[in-house]
């Protein structure tokens, strides 16, 4: 007799009922519903009716807000990406043989990862304050420029991005450190015997062997950055003069869908983020062939 290819059909149905039911109610149906909403008009009170491409036409004809937010988000993601080389240097420093206090340093660098973004954003907003902020005081002491960092449209987004780097450093460090663990120490030693100094060894041995981890960290960093909401929401309050020029795409989504209650427009913005996220990730995977080497 031929053995049954699917001996567990009944059990799979029973055990998957709740998980898959939840997936349908809270994820798969919402996905479809968001797509439908983007082609609809109406409000929560009147209900929504599908009317065609009007919302999408609006997006391309006068969706300046959305494009601006999209640009801001990409700029933010690009700046936060600069945190990856910083994390690489720290990971390499921490990795040196015989270095004491490794877990002590790791703890300190990791703390921002576990702290609530809302809470640390408040601290940074205070530090960035134009009148009595700590940053201006420090910069003033060394003769640097001072300004109202998060109330100035020219600097607000960058100021938030610095916090983004600070928050993500610990995560980047952990993943890169795990990658370094798998680099065989014999290669470093061989380079050392050949007379390569620490800087030379970092660029010629460590970085090339670490490219798969660097790639992973970069992809995750960008995906995370595209979701930025909390930091901006707190650091730039609703009345901030820099807000209009600094909104990210998720911030705009929240504002349109849940403050102005324009759900169809919210759905359009959400779909734009999906397209952009997929596109940016696809580009990263394509570029990967040029610089990532798998040993």
């Amino acid at each position, binding site marked *: 007799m031929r053995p049954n290819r*699917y001996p*567990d*059909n009944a*059990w*799979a149905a029973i*055990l998957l009922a*709740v*998980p*898959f039911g*939840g*997936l349908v109610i*809270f*994820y*798969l149906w*919402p*996905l479809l*519903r*968001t797509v439908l909403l983007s082609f609809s008009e109406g409000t929560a009170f009147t209900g929504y009716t599908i009317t065609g491409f009007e919302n999408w036409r609006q997006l391309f004809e006068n969706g300046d807000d959305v494009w601006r937010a999209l640009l801001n988000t990409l700029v933010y993601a690009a700046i936060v990406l600069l945190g990856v080389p910083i994390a690489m240097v720290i990971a390499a*420093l921490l990795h*040196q043989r015989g*270095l*004491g*206090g490794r877990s002590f*340093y790791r*703890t*300190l*660098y990791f*703390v*921002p990862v*576990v*702290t*609530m973004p*809302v809470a640390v954003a*408040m*601290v940074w907003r*205070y530090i960035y304050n134009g*009148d*009595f*902020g*700590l940053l201006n*005081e420090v910069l003033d002491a060394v003769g640097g420029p001072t300004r109202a960092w998060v109330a100035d449209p020219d600097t607000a987004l960058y100021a938030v991005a610095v916090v983004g780097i*600070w928050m993500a450093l610990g*995560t980047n460090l*952990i*993943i890169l450190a795990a990658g370094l663990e798998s680099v065989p120490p014999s290669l470093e030693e061989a380079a050392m015997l050949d007379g390569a100094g620490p800087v030379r060894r970092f660029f010629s041995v460590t970085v090339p062997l670490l490219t798969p981890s660097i790639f992973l960290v970069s992809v*995750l*960093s960008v995906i995370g950055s*595209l979701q930025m*909401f*909390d930091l901006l929401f707190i650091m730039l*309050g609703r009345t901030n003069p820099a807000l209009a020029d600094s909104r990210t795409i*998720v911030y705009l989504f929240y504002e349109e*869908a*849940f403050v102005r209650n324009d*759900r169809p427009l919210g*759905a359009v*913005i959400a*779909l734009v*983020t*999906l397209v952009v996220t997929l596109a940016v990730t696809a580009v990263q995977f394509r570029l990967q062939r040029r610089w990532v080497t798998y040993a």
Partner: protein
Amino acid sequence: MRERLRSRHLVTHVLLMAGALLMVSPFVWQFLTSLKTLGESTRIPPTVLPSSPEWGNYSAFFDVVPVGSMAVNSVLALVLRVAGQLLVASLAAYVFARLRFRFRGPLLAGFLVVLMVPPQLFVIPQYEVIRAMGWLNSVQALALPGMFSAFGVFVLYQFMRTLPPELDEAARMDGANPLQIYLRIILPLCRPALAALTILTSLFSWNDLLWPLIVNTVPDRMTLPVGLATLQGAQGTDYPVLMAGSLLTILPMVLVFVLLQKQFIRGIAMSGIKA
């Protein structure tokens, strides 16, 4: 040679220490400010130390917003979401990793698709579902969508696939059914992955802003992050109280992190996810 090694490490220590100080300086400033008077916190140039510590800023935080109920909401939402997520995700992961059934591929694809889609695409309809059930401003509203997240399924699925298939085969020979194998054999072996998932889900739940901000809008139904945001909206310039409040809300997670450092770090490395 020894001497050289030590001096090289000296430079490393100086660099690492300088970086570490930069990393923690915001927290130091937060703590110092939380003990200042309002006047001291806005003085130009800033004073470093408070003239006499104002511990009253901490109790003032409790007077401005219903911190007690917010903390309870945050904790209950976390417990419900973590418990639900562990159960739901381990069940689904077990079925996909260990059972042979029809439509396994398409069903698994359903979970993986969700994993790749940014969360905003679910938020509006999720809100409509919660409202339709009459659950706005409730603990279950906070926890429900997150309980079914595909992320947990994926983490546990990856882990369960690495367990040898002989485990199930031997148990089946002995007459165990799939539910028994899940409960008695697979789940106990998954303890490290379950611990990692618990930690990550707790972190997401405790720190999350967007979803709780949308579903729970009544002050004594809010979570701590939303409460803090409201506090800033109400008295955006009382920095000592804001610093005291924000310090109190980050303290639980930092303490848990210090105690469970290894598991935290393994969780992050295992899932490669941004917290």
